[in-house]
């Protein structure tokens, strides 16, 4: 069965409100009566999953580098470092020089104080346009541009960790995170590379990030509830702070350097539709059919990337109900995270598959799985667009 050009995961760098590293996440997910870590104070009425205590200098030792980044880039660069450590690549220039980097990038962190100060002064100005120019010239920090520029997460990973084989940043919320993984797996299968570092980060405890999704009417307000339970009163997204990077390499390459993989990525499919009722379901059904015969439903669980946003989450819930497999919604545990949502769900699936068991239900709507876990399906339905299905199998 195992083939040389299979894609295997040899390193996971995961940081979320639950902590950092695979062990911390597994411990949190398997502990008695799971409770998420929530921040309801920073931006009420929005419940958010915050940054855990984190010593960035452990992965980003130079203060000069840290100063050049905002939280989003720091978190991603940190998670990338953890993944490289796990995969035994840290400080291996020969390997890092041919490690291909694919980042699903967000970015766009602003200086909120400058924004509102300018907005306050504009209405009274004799010439608002002229004042805007003046204020932008004096209030924007030159370094902030780079500290929030989308492709500079990848740039910082190159600078801090020396990953320089190639560098691609994809944009586009959840589907970008899916395609980062999908393209790496496809390139490995085709011999267009052996060694990839793939991932993303999200740092949404910021007013400008909340503003965007609030315009879309998509945020959960006040009563936090688990993803499926919250559908009873309108759903909504509780955004999560998270960094996730995966080292993905060909099975032969991993074996050649004596690495024991965490798990294998057997398949990643990504699709889209205009989200007319039933269209997303049709995509998912087709993706599942394409895995025909490759999964044993009695030994498979679903790690769902459902965002919590009502329409997509409810359609996904109904589709999942028809599969009859145990389901866990990642966003209940760590919040919904846009670009890193799919990589993080793949990471959690990989850990569970390696452990050979599914973690306990995160809420009443989820059922226990006493049987051993032999494979995990991973869904990645974007809150607006994109439907993805991944399959993680034992290494």
């Amino acid at each position: 069965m195992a083939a040389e050009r299979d894609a295997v995961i040899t390193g996971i760098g995961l940081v979320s409100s639950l902590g950092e590293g695979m062990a911390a996440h597994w411990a949190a997910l398997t502990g008695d009566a799971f409770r998420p870590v929530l921040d309801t104070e920073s931006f009420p009425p929005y419940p958010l999953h915050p940054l855990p205590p984190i010593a960035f200098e452990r992965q980003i030792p130079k203060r000069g580098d840290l100063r050049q980044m905002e939280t989003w880039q720091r978190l991603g660069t940190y998670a990338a470092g953890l993944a490289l450590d796990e995969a035994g690549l840290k400080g291996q220039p020969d390997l890092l020089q041919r490690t291909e980097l694919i980042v699903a990038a967000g970015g766009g962190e602003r200086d909120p104080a400058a924004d509102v100060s300018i907005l306050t002064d504009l209405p009274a100005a004799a010439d608002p346009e002229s004042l805007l120019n003046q204020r932008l010239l004096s209030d924007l920090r030159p370094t902030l541009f780079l500290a929030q520029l989308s492709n500079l997460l990848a740039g910082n990973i190159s600078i801090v960790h020396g990953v320089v084989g190639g560098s691609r940043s994809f944009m586009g919320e959840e589907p970008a995170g899916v395609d980062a993984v999908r393209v790496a797996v496809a390139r490995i299968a085709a011999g267009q590379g052996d060694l990839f570092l793939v991932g993303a980060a999200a740092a949404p405890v910021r007013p400008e990030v909340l503003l965007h999704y609030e315009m879309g009417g998509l945020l959960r307000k006040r009563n936090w509830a688990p993803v499926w339970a919250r559908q009873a009163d309108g759903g909504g997204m509780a955004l999560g702070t998270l960094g996730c990077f995966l080292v993905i390499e060909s099975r032969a390459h991993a074996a050649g350097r004596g690495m024991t993989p965490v798990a294998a990525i057997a398949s990643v499919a990504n699709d889209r539709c205009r989200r007319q009722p039933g269209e997303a379901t049709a995509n998912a059904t087709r993706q599942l059919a394409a895995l025909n015969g490759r999964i044993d439903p009695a030994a498979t669980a679903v790690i769902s990337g459902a965002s919590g946003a009502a329409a997509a989450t409810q359609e996904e819930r109904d589709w999942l109900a028809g599969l009859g497999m145990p389901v866990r919604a990642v966003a209940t545990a760590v919040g919904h995270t846009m670009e890193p949502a799919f990589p993080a769900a793949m990471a959690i699936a990989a850990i569970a598959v390696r452990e050979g068991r599914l973690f306990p239900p995160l809420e009443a709507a989820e059922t226990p799985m006493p049987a051993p876990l032999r494979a995990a399906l991973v869904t990645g339905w974007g809150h607006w667009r994109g439907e993805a299905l991944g399959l993680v199998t034992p290494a």
Partner: protein
Amino acid sequence: MTADTDSQGRPIVVVTGIGVVTSLGQGVADNWGALTAGRSGIRRITRFPVDGLRTTIAGTIDFVKVTEFSTPALSEAIASSAIEEAIGMAAIGAKGAFPGPLFLALPPVELEWPQRRALAAASGCAGGSQGAIGYSDLLRAASGGAFKETYRRFLFASVGETLADRFGTSGVPIEVSTACASGATAIQLGVEAIRRGETEVALSVGTDTSVNVEAVVRFSLLSALSTRNDPPEAAVRPFSKDRDGFVMAEGAGALVLESRAHARARGAAILGVVAGLGEMADSFHRTRSSPDGKPIIACMNRAIADAGLVPDEIGYVNAHGTGTPENDKMEWLGLSAVLGERAGKVPVSSNKSMIGHTLSAAGAIEAVFTLLTLRNGVLPPTINYDIPDPALPIDCVPNLARPADVAAALSNSFGFGGQNVSLVLTREPG
């Protein structure tokens, strides 16, 4: 008998359709005419008042109208125009059913000042001493549902999804941001997808319309922009001793990529070949190249090797050539190493001297122009080359277009964040 696979046994990827919009005009014909006439598209910014700005010029696209201006709205409109031209030329697929995926290079998307001000106005706060506006006020204004369309417009996926809907491309569009190399990365992704047999056809597009007030200020604060505002058309001076920065510009370039086997089977006219891809990230600095030039040298060498060529076979270089002191120095250093004794003899010109720096779109637009260069046997000039820089003894095709029979060309794209991509483009053997 023409082979359909390259020396490494991979499907050869050809270009069967191109489309372009720049400040020089809309469409391949107008652009090529202006480019070979040595005309500049750089002009005074009129889109917003430029009071107090150090740089007041750009290569804006003012002849394409959108109902509500924003960078994503105009990026989408001009990308649409370039795609339509490219698909029309390739004569492929039914209307609204392009038979391959979309790879789209575009600038990062962020809420802009008109939208932010609209939210402030909707909050009912007077501003000034009457009442400071806070983000909580903006959030309250946002929550009424009146800004749903603004939310959609400023999603990162918005432009790609809209274009995918309009042109019926297959699968999920991939939006790319690798700074000023983005357009070349979009081509790389398309070529790789065809080479690995994932698709026979792909649409690679770069689009950028970043000339909004905050973006101009940001680049200005990095001291990256030329401040030679008068006259605007003389501002971009690649390889000249008195070059002082780049000029932001807008544009879109689109390429229909196709396996040669697929193109020949349907009898499509082949415009050229994307023969080689090269990439190497630079870990030296966020905005500067390694002083030894190693990453850009490796990037160019990889592209040439990937094409199954040797540096002696490169007959022309379409330079990144931004006109910043740093870029042109480093690019010459890299070219000197790659071309060896032929450096200084191989013509190297910068389209940016005329169209400005189209940022995320540059790699795609300049690939389109490089294909036209090969096909038409004319090298577009580097204009404004008045004072040669003795440190850069380059043949930059100064000021006047030149006929030349070139079979293989290199197109460079280097960006902030250590992004380096080179493409080797060749003529379809007659």
